[in-house]
């Protein structure tokens, strides 16, 4: 019966299902590389989801929706930035508070927007490329945000590995004292990273409410932000692995639903837990070599910085 699942459609829907967590995880990766742990991803995602939804419905343009979502996510993360970078509040507690705030706030401003259909996000017309057999439906028939997320993986990878700014950002994340001694503006760099993370989480949320579901429902992220956080660790802070992790997680989720729909006789419980099981498995495999895994974790992750200390 497995034969009745069309692998081409499966891969295409896997990419759609994974895009929200991919975007959010990429943003969080940059934040954590700068030495900041922002647990508010879920809150920023859902705020982006409703802000993007409202903007798209009011203007009729999904593009405006995504811009608004990024702005809203960044605005929410600015609260986090002010609290943790200037007032030196505890990052874990502040991040959790941000999630709670985001969920409540989004429910409040989303009151009048339940049950409305957002304007459809058009698929990118890539002409003859879309008509290619096999590769066409998999790669060239998506909405623009899928390509934005993929481009972002490459951009973040290049930025962190190959650019001077990326090197500085990583230096801040490894040892803010050393970076400060060298004259780098630790707080400013971290705030920029936090804003980027917020914008990415907002985009991920808007992808849920504008493309993947597409509607606004309170609490609709349903834990996607936490999965994004886990994927950053899973990926040992590397953009390429974030892509692999997000697609693996999204892929197994979609696959298990497809297997059920196709009537494959595998006990459903195993299918349902498969995404989590595989995540744990990969974590074990990755962390088998302790020294190398620890090497990649930003040394100053979650530590507050003040120039006086």
């Amino acid at each position, binding site marked *: 019966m497995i034969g*009745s*699942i*069309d692998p081409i*459609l*499966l891969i295409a*829907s896997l990419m759609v*299902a994974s895009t*929200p967590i991919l975007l959010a995880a990429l943003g969080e990766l940059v934040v954590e590389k700068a030495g900041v742990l922002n647990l508010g991803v879920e809150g920023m995602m859902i705020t982006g989801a409703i802000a993007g939804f409202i903007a798209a419905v009011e203007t009729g343009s999904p593009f405006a929706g995504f811009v608004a979502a990024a702005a809203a996510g960044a605005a929410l993360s600015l609260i986090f930035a002010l609290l943790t970078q200037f007032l030196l509040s505890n990052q874990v507690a502040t991040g959790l508070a941000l999630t709670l705030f985001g969920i409540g706030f989004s*429910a409040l401003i*989303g*009151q009048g927007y*339940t*049950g*409305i*259909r957002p304007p459809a996000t058009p698929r990118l017309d890539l002409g003859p490329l879309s008509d290619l057999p096999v590769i066409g439906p998999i790669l060239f028939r998506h909405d623009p945000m899928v390509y934005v997320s993929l481009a972002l993986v490459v951009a973040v990878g290049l930025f962190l590995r190959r650019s001077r700014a990326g090197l500085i950002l990583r230096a801040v994340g490894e040892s803010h004292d050393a970076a400060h001694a060298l004259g780098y503006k630790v707080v400013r760099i971290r705030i920029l990273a936090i804003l980027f993370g917020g914008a990415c989480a907002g985009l991920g949320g808007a992808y*849920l409410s504008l493309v*993947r*579901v*597409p*509607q606004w*429902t*309170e*609490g*609709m*992220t*349903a*834990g*996607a932000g936490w999965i994004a956080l886990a994927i950053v660790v899973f990926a040992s802070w590397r953009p390429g692995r974030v892509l692999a992790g997000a697609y693996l997680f999204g892929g197994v*989720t*979609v696959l298990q*639903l*497809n297997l*059920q*729909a*196709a*009537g494959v*006789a595998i*006990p*459903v*419980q195993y299918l*349902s837990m498969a995404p989590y099981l595989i995540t744990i498995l990969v974590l074990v495999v990755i962390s088998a070599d302790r020294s190398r895994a620890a090497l990649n974790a930003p040394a100053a992750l979650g530590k507050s910085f003040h120039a006086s200390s």
Partner: protein
Amino acid sequence: MNRRTLLKGSAAALAAVGLARPALAQEPLKIGFIYVGPIGDLGWSFQHDQGRLAVEEEFGDRVETVYLESVPEGADAERAMTQMALQGCKLIFATSFGYMDPVINVAAKFPDVMFEHATGYKRADNVATYDARFYEGRAVMGTIAGRMTKSNKIGYIGSFPIPEVIQGINSTFIHARKVNPEVEISVVWAYTWFDPAKEADAAKALIEQGVDVILAHTDSTAPLAEAAKTEGVIGFGQASDMLDFAPSPRVSAIVDNWAPYYIDRVQKMLDGAWTSTATWGGIGEGEVQIGEITSAVPEEVKAEALALADAIAKKEYHPFTGPLNKQDGSAWLAEGETADDATLAGMNFFVEGISGDIPS
């Protein structure tokens, strides 16, 4: 208004409250509701909250209601209900199956607080249960589904493999088969009541398998939003009317109407006549309503569906009437025999013709 008059004003208000107090016969009855999803799901929890609002409207000052939304099933529910009981709630409605054991645990600790648990089967002196015969509505939806499908494949998104959901799947299938012997049903278990993204993914997986009628027993409108993306796919509102998706893909709906029950139970509390009961109302009692059947459905199908709903309401027809066999082919109900409530309340098997196993 300067500060002095403000102070005077509030002093007067305080005095008024103080004076008014003895005049009140008693404190308002405090009633708690806990919901498994957000009220804004426009489905299950939304309908329960409509019931709460109806109670407020009916009794006015005599009652005070509080509610908690998105309370996870399990230990967290126990904490939430304990908190409500400590806050002075005398009647607590726990509105999801998974609150069953937490309700029993908390009820044992607060013998003076009465609990109402939706869709469960465990009762105590201060725990009543109530449920609606959703399967009666499913019979009507199944009839429409069987008539409307062109691919002869209908899909069903189940939440958890519990009797309430299994009744719905069986009832849908029996009545779809009755009008269309070719029909087949694919069941996908989402293992969640509320996760719009996952519900949409499940609907998508079904549609990719050629399904053109989607039924859902989860709480959000996401399956309908997904169905709307594909031409020719229809679905049904679940728990709430979901009219935003009418006339298509939403062609009809099962609407839960809890208001009459809630008002009745609160009245009993106020009269001091509350006892632990097990209530199970259906179309006839008005607890299950059939949402408007839209113009996307041909007239004769609509008439057939409404006639079935009418027969069920008048108790002339029971959706589980023999001859029916279980999935493995063994006999369940003989010709003309109807299922008893005890069997339905514990239903853990598919009827003959449905493929796939129920996860245990």
